[in-house]
């Protein structure tokens, strides 16, 4: 098991390296000019060229990459080209926020989706199954900027129950934070519910139809015990992989939700960096998000292996 984890971590390192090369390659062919972006359309070409020279952008991309890589390895992630700040503290603060929102959304989503999936899977075609499927799919098909606006206009502007902005004032307590984050988290839950719910439901249905389930029922085990000890263990395996895969998106891909609720996370920071060609900032954010994504998948695989004896034994033998 340890060897498995170590190998995966090594692989993650290679992934990060490849990702950083790709980022530099892509930014060097992306349209736009940093000097022009910073100074605006009405600066002279001479000023733009001078700024690019001062930022070192007149140097070849390969050289800039090596300098950046050397910096990252020694803990200096460089300075943003367009914002007056160093990359690492900014990106880390944003990552922390994104993790909080993603964690909050998952805490709300996972129990509800699993419970609903189990209940629906036990009686496929029943009223609850139909209701949950239709409601889930309806919200799942709606983009988050639509559900988000509905939530804001309804719960925020109209009823005044929840704050419109996700970012509380400085020094706010945990309860305030959770109140502020409820609406963005809800819009994510609504978006992801159908996906997770259907995974669990499908898993339940196939495992309930499996031979071992019939055996367990026939030898007289109570239904509750059959589900808890035999069916769920197997039915939830694919769901765990799916949650792991969603975490990367939940942390790094929430540009729309972050912008709509003004919750400055790492997704919108990366979007800003990409549209403004702020390469050190973009590379730093991408590195962190790729890292989170890789670790989340690794964690999902470890949990999967732990739950699945076949994989666990295979790894132990490796």
């Amino acid at each position, binding site marked *: 098991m340890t060897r498995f984890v170590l190998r995966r971590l090594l692989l993650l390192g290679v992934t990060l390296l490849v990702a950083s090369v790709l980022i530099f390659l892509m930014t060097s062919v992306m*349209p*736009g*000019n940093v*000097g*022009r*972006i*910073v*100074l*605006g*359309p*009405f*600066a*002279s*070409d*001479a*000023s*733009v060229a*001078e*700024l690019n020279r*001062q930022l070192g952008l007149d140097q070849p991309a390969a050289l800039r990459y090596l300098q950046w890589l050397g910096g990252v390895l020694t803990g200096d992630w460089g300075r*943003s080209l*367009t*914002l*007056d*700040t160093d990359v690492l503290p*900014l990106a880390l603060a944003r990552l922390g926020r994104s993790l909080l929102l993603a964690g909050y959304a998952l805490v709300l989503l996972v129990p509800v989706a699993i419970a609903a999936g189990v209940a629906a899977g036990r009686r496929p075609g029943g009223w609850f199954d139909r209701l949950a499927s239709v409601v889930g799919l309806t919200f799942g098909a709606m983009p988050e900027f639509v559900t988000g*606006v509905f939530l*804001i*206009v309804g719960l*925020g*502007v109209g009823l*005044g129950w929840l*704050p*419109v*902005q996700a*970012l509380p004032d400085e020094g706010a307590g945990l309860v305030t934070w959770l109140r502020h984050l409820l609406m963005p988290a809800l819009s994510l839950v609504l978006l992801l519910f159908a996906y997770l719910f259907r995974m669990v439901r499908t898993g339940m249905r196939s495992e309930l139809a499996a031979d071992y389930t019939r055996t367990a029922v026939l030898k007289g085990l109570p239904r509750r015990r059959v589900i808890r000890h035999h069916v769920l263990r197997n039915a939830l395996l694919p769901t765990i992989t799916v949650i792991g895969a969603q975490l990367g998106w939940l942390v790094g891909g929430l540009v729309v939700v*972050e*912008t*709509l*609720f*003004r919750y*400055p996370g790492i997704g*919108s*920071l990366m*979007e*800003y960096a990409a*549209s*403004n*060609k702020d390469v050190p900032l973009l590379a730093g954010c991408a590195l962190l998000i790729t890292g989170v994504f890789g670790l989340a998948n690794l964690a999902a695989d470890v949990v999967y292996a732990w739950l699945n004896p076949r994989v666990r034994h295979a790894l132990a033998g490796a």
Partner: protein
Amino acid sequence: MADRDSTGGAPLIDRRRRRLIQAMGLAGLGAGTMGLWPGALRAAADGEPRRGGTLRVALPSVKTIDPLKVSSGGGIAAIQQVGEYLVWAEDDLSLRPVLATDWQAADGGRRWTFELRRGVRFHDGREMTSADVVATFRRLVDPDNPTAAASQLPFLRPEGVSADGDYRVVFELDQPVGRFPYYTQTYNAIILPADFDGDFAANPVGTGPFRLVDYTPQESVVFERNPDYWDAPRPYVDRVECDIYGAAQPQILALRGDEVDMMLLAGPVDAKPLFDTDGVEVLTTPSAMTRQLTMRTDQPPFDDVRVRRAVALAIDRPTMVETLLGGRADIGNDHPVAPIYPEKVSVAQRERDVAEARRLLAEAGHADGFEIDLYTGRFVELPQYAVLAQQMLAEVGIRVKISVEPLNVYYGHWTEVPLGLTDWTARPTAGQILAAAFRSDAEWNAPHWRNDEFDRLLDAFEASTDEAERDDLATRLAQILHDEVPAVITYFPNGLRPVRSRVRGVSAHMSNYLDLRGAWLAG
């Protein structure tokens, strides 16, 4: 600080304006040429300002806040709380003395002397003197400093700025500039200490009404009242919290949800729902902002003036203004001398005439019309403008293909495209925009248009300090642009600034600058 200027009020501004007119050698003229805009100045009617409170402002994207490099609307608004200019152009384009109290032209507008306000202190306690002003302007025009200001002050060289004692600064210009005081309000030109180290985010020191206490990039800028501000009792609010937003929609939701007190600005499309929202007012002001539909005059098909005129004749201006802006704009006439400028321009208004446009196109050899690519940026109402223009041009046979690009991409090639739609910010003088957009050798002459007569008249216009002569020159310049049509200028949209009703002492601004020294919150 028993300064005679600290009293404020309208009579003072009138006196100042008179003095400006005298300074320009115009005594007896111009008294009626600059009217006040009713509605734009609400402060006067709101009674006694109330002290205290926190004003929450929604800012659009802020890139750098380094005063030398700043160019984003939010960034400019942020530095304007910390620092101040020598002068401030009011809504009616009169000049309010700020760090300069007086100014005189000599040598036909080639040499300008500014008297500085005495007793003004930087946020670190040091007095502002001529050394700081000289250093600020030298920094702005030093070719080693990348800044947009250099191109706004092309007639100024570092050695042209000098101090004459502690409270007087002399500008020696390469050419006469009759409206030079306005140019000193170039947005980068807040007066910084002479020893400014280049890192404004870490060490934000100016003379302004507020001190910057916290700046989190892409998130918020927080200011606190400067208790030693020279223009006591201003400012009135204790604290200004600016939240930075990535898009317009969340700002509008936050304003409606009463989580911010005001927005810096709103585009006409975004502001629509706010005009009938309870508790929200949209402040408006006439502006010299333009949208220029520029045509490459150096290549077919727009190298033929008849084709350009046909395009201008195809555009239905009143419909555009009504559809895109809800009527909140002045109609344009294919020249950038907006009605807000003091120069009186008399050029016959161009009206839509499809038959004439078709005739001109046929005469130019395009009886069956032609296809053309129109490029623009994804910004305010520009994409919708492009669609309307596409429909209107289709009626005269011009088939337009629209490319709406992210602004950063568009600005990468906006002076190269055959047909481009560009937003131009308002400048306080007509000369600035005429020179920036249409002088033959101007970098942003997107139509690549050359006209020696225009250049000659423009030189005279920029130098002139005689109002009657300025009117005449402006009319001739506008007439050339109207006839030659390097760009279709359909309208001058009003500046819009949505605020909660309790916000007082704030007005919209034609360049979306933010002056909060008089802002206060009603109970």
